[in-house]
Structures are given as C-alpha cells and as structure tokens.
C-alpha cells in the first residue's frame, strides 16, 4: 500500500481513509456533504498525490505523445494543458488523462492512479521509436488541489504570479507560500480552482498554509466523486474502460483523426460502430440510481447505470448510464430497476447536471 506524503496531516485531521488503487487516501474528514458544499460555495482542499505523474521529454517527445494518445498534442502551446486519452489498438480506452506542456520538449502526463502501471508501460513502449524519454515522477510528486469560488483569492494571497492570465487548462511554474510548484488551473469538480504539483517533502507545508484559511475545508475522495458527477465528468472504471471507445462516452471530440501521423487505435476508432451511448439521467425523489443498476425502457433492460448519486447541490437523483443508442435522446422517459425491488422513473437530460454560475 502506498501512502501520500500528507498521510500524517490527514491522520491528525481524523480522516476516514479508503484504499484507492493501492493508495491509502482520505475518503472524507467529516461529512462528505459538507465537503461537497464547501467546494461549490467557498473552497475545498484535496490531496491527490495518488495520481500518476509521468514526464515525457526530448526532441521526439511531441511525436511520441501524438502517436501514443488520440488527441493532437501539437496544438497544446507551452504553458497549456489538454484532456486526452490513451487507447489500445482496438480503440478501447486504457486511460483518460491530462497532458501539460511544461517546457520546450517537455511534457507532464497526469494519469489515474489505478492506471499508473498501464500508462507507464504503454508510454514507454510507444515512445520507443522516438527520441523521447519517459520518466515516472509519481512517487516523488505530491498533488494538492484547491477548488471552489474562493480559490483564486486564496492563492493570490500566497503568490505574486498573475492569476488573471492563468486561464482554464493553463499551467506555469510559480512560487506559492514560498514553495516552488507547478500551478495549474485544472480540476475535476466543475468549479474554478487550481492543482498544485510539488515535491513530496514540501507538501505538508503547502497543505497547512492553504488549510489555515477559514473558508477552506479539507475534502476527501467521496466528495470528489459527487462533484465530478454533477459536473458530468467521466470516471475511469465507471464510464470509461477497455470495453468503451471515446465516442461511446460522448467524448469522440477528443479523437483527432485530422492530426499528422498514425496513432494507436486510429483504424479501430475510425471503423467503430457505436452500439451504446452514455446518457445523463435525472430522477425524482431521493433514491439514487447506483452503479450496475439496470436501465429499463417499457420494462425491458436497455442499459446500465455507471455512476449515480443523490445530487448534493441539486437535491434530486442524477446518474450516468450506457443505453442502446435508440433510447439516448434528451427527454426520453426511462426507468431504473432498484435492486429488483422497485423501479424509479428517470429522464434523459443534457450534460452537465451542474454548471457553475447557474
């Protein structure tokens, strides 16, 4: 079991821990609903040190990444980031990840903890034919996220770096609280916010400085999951897997057939026929559809829930599900089989469920 460099800090805070992808990480500190609310209304602090950081460098780094990923990394300017996917030769998704262009011929790939080994192995293999070096930085790098409407004001108190020019999906080296970090305006909550990458040894100090603000609440992985679900963001293992293509998940736009050169999965993705579609479902009452529950149309199973929760912000049940394409249109009335005991009506709605400022 791996532990975060912030393990002792979490234990002091009385965190309830969970085993996540081989890491012991905070599930919640107190009420996960209060943590969720803090991110929507003020600011939440997350330890994401379990995420995988892999550096790809060298004169052939860009070509290697363009071959390895389905997106066009060539259009990612220095100081910017891109959400993309690693697919297998059959077009199945091996991971969804973020690529930061951190310098000339330098990229940082941030992958899901559960896929660390696969991504590292695939990147190393796929970069083999290029002048590029793949280096695992996971176990020396901490990641702290500050998310929520108060995030900008809080970071501004501890840094001289100009935040107005640090746009969404941008990142730059900065000094925050006297510590050198890679400051990225990215996140997985649907709110404005930052992700700060730094060496393990400095993580406790940065955490304490940010957590000292009274408007900041430490948040665990439980609230992170409901936040991302409200924002309509997929979770690998739920909405994405080797049995799904990016298009199945409604993310066909991340596959750039127009980029130069071949990439792994190109032919399979070009030929793929869509047999199911990811949809957003809205329910009534308080019963949440859960992962694995069957989705019904006129009493017959036509799909399955991949993620679901009683939305803390909206107050009604929300879910993502794969359904047969004929049942995917907005406004379609479906039902969810709740543990074989009852059914709850749901309606296909547009994503995201929650958009900040609305």
């Amino acid at each position, binding site marked *: 079991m791996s532990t975060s460099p912030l393990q002792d800090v979490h234990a002091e805070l009385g965190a*309830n821990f969970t085993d996540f992808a081989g890491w012991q990480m905070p*599930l*919640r500190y107190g*009420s*996960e*609903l209060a943590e969720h609310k803090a991110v929507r209304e003020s600011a939440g602090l997350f330890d994401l040190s379990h995420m995988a950081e892999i550096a790809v460098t060298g004169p052939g780094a860009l070509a290697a990444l363009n071959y390895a990923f389905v997106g066009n990394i060539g259009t990612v300017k220095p100081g910017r980031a891109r959400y993309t996917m690693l697919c297998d030769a059959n077009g199945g998704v091996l991971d969804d990840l973020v690529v930061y262009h951190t310098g000339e011929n330098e990229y940082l790939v941030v992958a899901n903890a559960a896929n660390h080994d696969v991504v590292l192995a695939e990147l190393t293999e796929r970069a083999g034919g290029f002048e590029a070096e793949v280096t695992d930085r996971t176990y020396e790098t901490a990641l702290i996220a500050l998310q929520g409407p108060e995030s900008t004001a809080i970071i501004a108190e501890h840094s001289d770096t100009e935040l107005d020019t640090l746009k969404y999906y941008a990142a730059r080296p900065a000094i925050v609280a006297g510590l050198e970090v890679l400051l990225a305006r990215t996140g997985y909550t649907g709110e404005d916010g930052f992700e700060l990458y730094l060496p393990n040894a400095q993580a406790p100090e940065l955490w304490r400085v940010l957590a000292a603000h009274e408007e900041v609440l430490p948040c665990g992985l*439980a609230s992170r*999951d*409901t936040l991302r679900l409200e924002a309509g963001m997929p979770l690998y293992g739920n909405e994405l897997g080797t049995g799904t293509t990016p298009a199945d998940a409604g993310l066909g736009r991340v596959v750039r057939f127009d980029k130069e050169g071949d990439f792994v999965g190109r032919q399979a993705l070009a030929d793929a026929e869509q047999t199911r579609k990811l949809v957003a479902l809205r329910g009534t009452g*308080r*019963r*949440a559809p*859960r992962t694995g529950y069957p989705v019904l149309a006129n009493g017959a199973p036509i799909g399955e829930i991949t993620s679901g*929760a*009683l939305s*803390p912000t909206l107050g009604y049940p929300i879910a993502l599900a794969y359904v047969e394409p004929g049942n995917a249109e907005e406004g379609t009335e479906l039902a969810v089989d709740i*543990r074989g005991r009852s059914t709850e009506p749901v309606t296909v709605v547009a994503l995201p469920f929650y958009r900040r400022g609305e």
Partner: protein
Amino acid sequence: MTIPNELRYSKEHEWIAVDGDVATVGITAFAAEALGDVVFVQLPAVGENVGKGDAIGEVESTKSVSDVYSPLSGEITEVNGATETNPETVNEAPYESGWLFKLRLSDTGELDALLDAGAYAELIKEA
C-alpha cells in the same frame, strides 16, 4: 466511538433497546460513521410481521446502499418517519432521534443471542 452500555447489539451493527416485549432498533454510531452521510431511509410498514434476519428496510448514504435487517422476530409497531424526511438524523443522533423502528417480540428468547456492549466493542475492533 459511542457504544452505550444499556443497549444490546447485532452483528449487523444495529442497536436494540428492550422494554418488556417491545424492542427499539437503530443503527450504531459505528455503522453510521462507516456509511457516511445518510441521504435516504426506507422503513418497514407498521403491522408487518418480520422474522429475525429479514431485510426489512434500506439505508442509503452518498456512496452506498445497505439493507436494514430485523435483529429479532415480531410485529412492527412503530417506525420513525422523521428519518425518512430527515435522513441526516441517523448520523446526528443514531442512538436517540435516529432510531428506526419498534417491534413487539414474538420470542423474547431470541434476545439471548444479541451482543452486549463489550462484545460489540470487540466485534468492531476486528472490523
């Protein structure tokens, strides 16, 4: 973790307060903490005859769904509807206002199989 001495406990993490042949049942503070924020409670119907070990209700937290088992056999005489309208009561006061249901026991001999506070403390130490 609070484990009141005067209560009995089941291995399914329920507490039982016995008054004559009527038992009041709820989930323990340990169970409430493990579940996280409770957002939905479904209780049995008053008048329903239930057997020991029957799944007679459900408690949903943000992340999970759990069955509520009847720790004893008998007839449901009362349910705490306040937990259906305010599920957070189960987290806030699991041994008090967060009680779930009452039943009139059909076999008080079943009480012997329940755990006392000490035995329950041992049980959750292993968990």
